[in-house]
């Protein structure tokens, strides 16, 4: 049974000011209702004035997704009552969107290239936000700081065939948006998704309220299971809107009256039609993820997997390019595998990591001044310092202080002697030809010396010591 998925993505554009007024969009950590004016509060008589930057950002996305920009597009009013919507209509675009007919390349579930068609993108304003006071209060509060934040709505054709594909598509889309510099991926609620999902031959279900791209896979996986179970029991899937409950990972039906709207769209009389098709040619696009991935493989000689990981986030790719001069392949392994893992573990951003220190660390590894194990230990120490807001010491200083310089064989003689003496049974097993015994002995030495030696080199030393009878 084929799964069919189409997405509608709302992206907050990272302009400095709102879509129709001069209020700042950066209200994080500020008090409610402090980034408002007559326009975004919808006060009587106030008029919208279109933010050029938002249009430019929209066109940038259109160009990057290979879309067609019609001669004329138009803003329209979407009318509905809700306390977070101060004008009781949202200024959006309806039958004349900013751009139409684009594509995004992803990998399908077999790892093959696949094009997802983009139906349209359009600009619209974000409503305010309701804050429900805890403890069953009789009222809710409204915060209009978000009111008027520019959103780009991106609508796809129903081209995805699994929840995993949907996640990959969103990842790719997010990466493109970040490359274009039109979207701040770290902003909470910066990307919101509605998903349409159906099993071939059955009714379509719309899942709303997915606020993270990780949530999309979860919500869709839940829906696939739910819909298959219905069919298996001989029931029908009903066409409806469902809400995703992020915390519980389930979707629930929301067929309330409020959902059945006639939005009575009509052209926004306070704004002129938009004629911007001629501006597209002048837009300079940055190098996009696919091009950059291919260049990384060619220029730095790194693997497809590393290139893909590194170019998956423009900041990570930039970071890699500043440290690659030390040794491109070594740098790729360390940044894409080790560093990224450590960052994820700490929930840290690459932006917080000093590239010069990492380059120094890579130089120590390249010259074999330290072992990989010591490298990881130093990296962790540096990241912990960064995370705590402390100055990040040069790795050479840490090597010195902690005595982590790679040790040569001679230094270990005493430790090896001690370990061999303390583990006669293991020595016996080794002599009897049990391979695991040597690993155990090496592990003991590593433990005693805190990873300052290369385990392979140590293996030779230990076996040599036992074989030659401990000279």
């Amino acid at each position, binding site marked *: 049974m084929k799964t069919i998925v189409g997405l509608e993505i709302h992206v907050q554009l990272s302009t400095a000011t709102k879509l129709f007024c001069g209020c700042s969009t950066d209200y994080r950590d500020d008090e409610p209702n402090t980034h408002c004016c007559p326009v975004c509060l919808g006060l009587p*008589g106030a008029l919208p004035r279109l933010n050029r930057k938002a249009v430019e950002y929209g066109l940038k996305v259109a160009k990057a997704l290979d879309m067609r920009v019609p001669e004329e597009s138009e803003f329209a009013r979407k009318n509905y009552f809700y306390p977070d919507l101060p004008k009781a209509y949202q200024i959006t675009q309806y039958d004349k969107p900013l751009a139409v007919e684009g594509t995004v390349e992803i990998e399908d579930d077999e790892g093959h290239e696949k094009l997802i068609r983009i139906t349209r993108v359009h600009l619209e304003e974000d409503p305010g936000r309701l804050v429900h006071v805890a403890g069953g209060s009789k009222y809710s509060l409204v915060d209009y700081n978000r009111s008027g934040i520019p959103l780009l709505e991106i609508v796809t054709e129903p081209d995805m065939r699994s929840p995993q594909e949907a996640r990959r598509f969103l990842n790719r889309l997010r990466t493109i948006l970040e490359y274009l510099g039109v979207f701040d991926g770290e902003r909470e609620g910066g990307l919101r998704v509605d998903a349409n999902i159906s099993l071939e031959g059955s009714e379509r279900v719309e899942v709303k309220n997915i606020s993270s791209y990780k949530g999309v896979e979860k919500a869709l996986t839940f829906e696939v299971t739910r819909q298959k179970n219905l069919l298996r029991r001989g029931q029908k899937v009903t066409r409806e809107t469902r809400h995703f409950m992020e915390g519980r990972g389930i979707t629930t039906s929301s067929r309330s009256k409020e959902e059945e709207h006639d939005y009575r769209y009509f052209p926004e009389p306070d704004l002129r039609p938009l004629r911007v098709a001629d501006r597209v040619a002048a837009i300079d696009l940055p190098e996009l993820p696919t091009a950059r991935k291919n260049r990384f493989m060619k220029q730095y000689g790194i693997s497809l997997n590393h290139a893909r990981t590194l170019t998956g986030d423009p900041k990570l790719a930039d970071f890699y390019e500043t440290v690659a001069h030390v040794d491109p392949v070594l740098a790729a392994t360390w940044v894409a595998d080790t560093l990224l893992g450590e960052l994820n573990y700490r929930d840290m951003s690459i932006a917080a990591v000093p590239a010069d220190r990492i380059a120094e660390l890579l130089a120590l590894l390249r010259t074999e001044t330290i072992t990989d194990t010591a490298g990881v230990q130093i990296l962790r120490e540096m990241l912990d310092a960064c995370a705590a807001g402390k100055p990040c010491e040069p790795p050479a200083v840490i090597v010195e202080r902690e005595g982590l310089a790679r040790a040569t064989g001679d230094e270990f003689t005493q430790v090896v002697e001690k370990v061999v003496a303390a583990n006669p049974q293991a020595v016996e097993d080794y002599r009897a030809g049990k391979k695991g015994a040597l690993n155990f002995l090496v592990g003991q030495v590593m433990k005693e010396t805190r990873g300052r030696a290369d385990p392979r080199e140590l293996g030779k030393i230990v076996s040599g010591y036992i074989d030659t009878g401990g000279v």
Partner: protein
Amino acid sequence: MAGTLDFSPDDRYNAFITTCRQATFSEGTLAGTAVAVKDNISTARIQTTCGSKILEGYVPPYDAHVVELLRQAGAAIVGKTNMDEFGMGTTTETSAFGPTRNPADPERVPGGSSGGSAAAVAAGLVPMALGTDTGGSIRCPAAFCGIVGLKPTYGRVSRYGLIAYANSLEQIGPMARTVEDVSRLMSVIAKYDPRDSTMLDRPYDHRPSADIKGLRVGIPEEYFGEGVDPRVAESVRDAIGVLEGLGAETVPVSIPGMQHALAAYYVICTSEASSNLARFDGVRYGPAVDTRKTWHEAYQDLRLELFGAEVRRRIMLGTFALSAGYAGRYYAKAQVARRNIKEDFERAFCDADVIAGPTMPTTAFRLGEKSDPLSMYLSDILTVPANLAGIPAISVPCGRVDGLPVGLQIMGRQFEDERVVDAAFAYEQEVRA
């Protein structure tokens, strides 16, 4: 010569909703001139109600662009004038603050919706006032009260701060006893404002000239046809004769699209109004909603209680006209009719420089006379075409019928407000002399 103006008028005609007894003013071309402002134009620190209970107590935190300009020019803003609720009416009787009476005959209406501004000027309480004109709301009361009123070209005066009724049709405009004062006030308010995206940078800076030799005056047959009081038509024809005497020539023109003008106008204005007025929900300003009810119920009850019958009627009409399945039949068709009228005027303006006719088909009605909404809507037939086409139109007094004032309407090409003003000025100077 900045200062304070004491303003304590004898408001026997109920022209004002709010008066400012101590109105401060600064230096400028209008220094110390008392100016009344229609109550749908936002004034910082002065209550602005649109003649509606739903905005009672609303004090805007900002000035409309025209009010900023008035203050900069030194005008003393002495009060906010009465109006049909949200501009929806032709008589000023739908105001929640009681009807305004016509100074020319207190048993009659002053016209609307800018009836308060017209009455204040006609009664001599202020020399000039601002009105707004969506379908004739400046020109109708100017004609009924015997003063001058100009609806500027759409996009010539900023709507920033004008509480919207029908955005695509309405303009703020000047009202005064003389064409010269109308022109002076127009020079103050018609300046570019980037906050109004529908505006063009075409400031008005003009001193009226009475020289109209060779002016081609178009006479549309539709403006003298059925429904127009023959005595009103005669007064207007006499006035056009005066223009001819001054060297103008008349040419017959035709606006065949007029037959659909009223229908198109009422579909468009009610559609836009249904959306504009949806924000009045008691959450942010005006009387507060009852928080013990669910929000949906609270909105519904508040709007039922505080909007007047005519406003509710137009919200319902507009909501219907935009509804799925009906928008194609009503809203889309109205846009076609509007385009046709615009093209009719463009054609007519190939042969004529201005077009003249009566402002209103009749003189002022008695209070309560137009209780049937349809007959009231029909009286807008001669004024709505200029709003649909976005062209400038002025009403200037041209005699009386049964002692009641009659208005001569002169319309011009887009952005030729100056020419319209000159024609009216020439007529006024001639009959005054």
